[in-house]
């Protein structure tokens, strides 16, 4: 009676455990995805549920892909993702290298640095709106303390707003990259550094030949998670700038939300959602392949 408990086979028990998850997944992930694909070929409007749904073929896709505004939004999103990743990797890896040296109170510093990551993105957006305020905000006060730029507003100037959202996202998520880099640094066995020490390698060479290759898989994983998140960034930026001034911080997700729930063009917004999904999915597939290559090295 090892394999059977009350007449149930191991396989049956396995199904019992797995079924709730599968049902949930089907209900809240798979079904909406399939339904969105269907809607993207229709002229459905969610605020007029009684109207007859008309099949429009690929017209939604054609209109989106030929829309200048959509391309501009994608460019803005790419700008946001690229620079947030660049700054977060540099700062995160740098902080990890510093915290890896076990100085006095390094535990306290680690905790303090991790704090922003634990806040809600909407709260962070609100909070930075005040920090960026030209009259009462501390940000302008500090910057003008270093160099007098006069009056400026990070969130309402066309040239500055795209950088404002990058600064806030970097402030919030650098700790995440740092944490994963720290895990990577801790995984490097001491004897490799000792061997390099005996082999009389320079500090630079130790970094390039031991530290970086050993941490790289961790770093790439962190970048992948963050890049996906930032590609669909909504809450933080929406609270901070609502996409303004003009359209300067209108990222893909903000565009999508407006199309779907302000203008109620459900069919067309579904098509946009599918396009974004395929873009992220494709980019991540390439990235995962690259990551596996790095890991196999």
């Amino acid at each position, binding site marked *: 009676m090892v394999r059977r408990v009350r007449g149930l086979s191991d396989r049956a028990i396995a199904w019992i455990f797995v079924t709730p998850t599968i049902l949930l997944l089907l209900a809240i992930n798979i079904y909406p995805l399939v339904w969105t694909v269907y809607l993207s070929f229709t002229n459905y409007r969610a605020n007029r549920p009684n109207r007859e749904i008309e099949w429009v073929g690929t017209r939604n896709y054609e209109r989106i892909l030929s829309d200048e505004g959509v391309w501009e939004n994608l460019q803005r999103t790419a700008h946001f993702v690229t620079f947030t990743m660049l700054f977060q990797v540099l700062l995160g890896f740098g902080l990890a290298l510093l915290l890896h040296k076990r100085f006095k109170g390094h535990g306290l510093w680690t905790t303090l640095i991790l704090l922003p990551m634990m806040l809600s993105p909407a709260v962070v957006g609100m909070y930075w709106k005040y920090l960026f305020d030209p009259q009462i905000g501390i940000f302008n006060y500090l910057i003008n303390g270093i160099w007098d730029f006069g009056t400026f507003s990070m969130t309402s100037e066309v040239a500055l707003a795209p950088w404002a959202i990058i600064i806030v996202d970097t402030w919030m998520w650098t700790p995440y990259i740092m944490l994963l880099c720290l895990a990577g640094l801790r995984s490097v*066995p001491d*004897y*490799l550094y*000792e*061997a*390099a*020490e*005996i*082999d*009389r*390698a*320079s500090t630079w*060479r130790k970094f390039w*030949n*031991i530290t970086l*290759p*050993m941490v790289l898989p961790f770093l790439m994983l962190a970048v992948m998670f963050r890049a996906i998140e930032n590609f669909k960034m909504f809450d933080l930026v929406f609270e901070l700038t609502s996409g303004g001034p003009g359209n300067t911080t209108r990222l893909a997700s903000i565009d999508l939300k407006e199309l779907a729930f302000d203008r109620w063009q459900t069919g067309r917004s579904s098509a946009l959602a599918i396009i974004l999904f395929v873009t992220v999915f494709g980019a991540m597939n390439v990235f995962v392949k690259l990551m596996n290559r790095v890991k196999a*090295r």
Partner: protein
Amino acid sequence: MADIRIDRVTKRFGDVTAVNALDLAIKDGEFVVLLGPTGSGKTTTLRLVAGLEKPDEGRIVIDGTDVTKAQPAERDVSFVFQQYSLYPHYTVYQNLAFPLKSPLLKWSKPEIDARVHEVAGMLHIEHKLKNKATELSGGEMQRVAIGRALVRRPAVYLMDEPLSSLDAKLRAELRVELKRISVELGATILYVTHDNVEAMTMADRIGVLNHGRLEQIATPRDIYQQPDTIYVAQRLSSPPLNLVDPSLFGIEAPAGTSTVGVRPEDITIGQPSGVEGSTTLVERLGAETVAVLQVNGTQIQALVDPQATIGEGETVRVGVAENAPMFFDRDGRRIDAPRAGG
């Protein structure tokens, strides 16, 4: 090549004294093996010489220069670690070339290439040069690690149980190889092990460590035949040394003797002069046979002739070969006994 002098060096880790006022002088071109069990301080001693640890007291001198406070890179030593400390994302070739690319050496590419191939040939890993370090078997990894220590011509070679993770056949092979290399290069080698066969076969001199102190240092022959203490005699005896009361075999012991040590190979069986005992276990290991005997309630291990037809549960006469017993006082120090032909 250089000599090493360790001058009353002490190293503590918290409450533990790993190395305790150790004195050791290694001559230029000498192969010295430090022998001791886990925790005897042999690896710490090696790391102190390498500069991977700094002593709390004492001095370390390599080739006439005081290096006590010097960094490992300033000491010109090479080190074979117990774990295969290869750079995992490098090929065998890159691993071997790594020490030669140090900014302190200004070798040209062809020079490096020639040297890497020379060492790879010496260790029979030439066909593996293009393989990744992680694709090798344990034996191959350790040979690469040894190779990385050999590519450079450092003042001193330090080796921390480099053969302990290899299988018996490869271990025997590399033992011979290392000895040959040491003679060929005239290298100064400090080698750490807990395996007395390695110590006996390779060393010019063996130092036996006990709780961070050097119990004795002497040539393999001397340390085997003239151990200063019970501890040293035990370390170099396999199967284990028999420690018996002087009265057991009726041996005439010098004054002050509290324990008599008899090696298993010095136990005789079937001699009329022996005392009565019985065999409890006979282990036939092929080349040798170990008999476990009971003599007046004391357990004795004897190495016997593999051809002998001794069986378990037999009553035999057990004796001790002439001039074989070693006499130790209450503190475990040997009392110099008269030895025929000495």
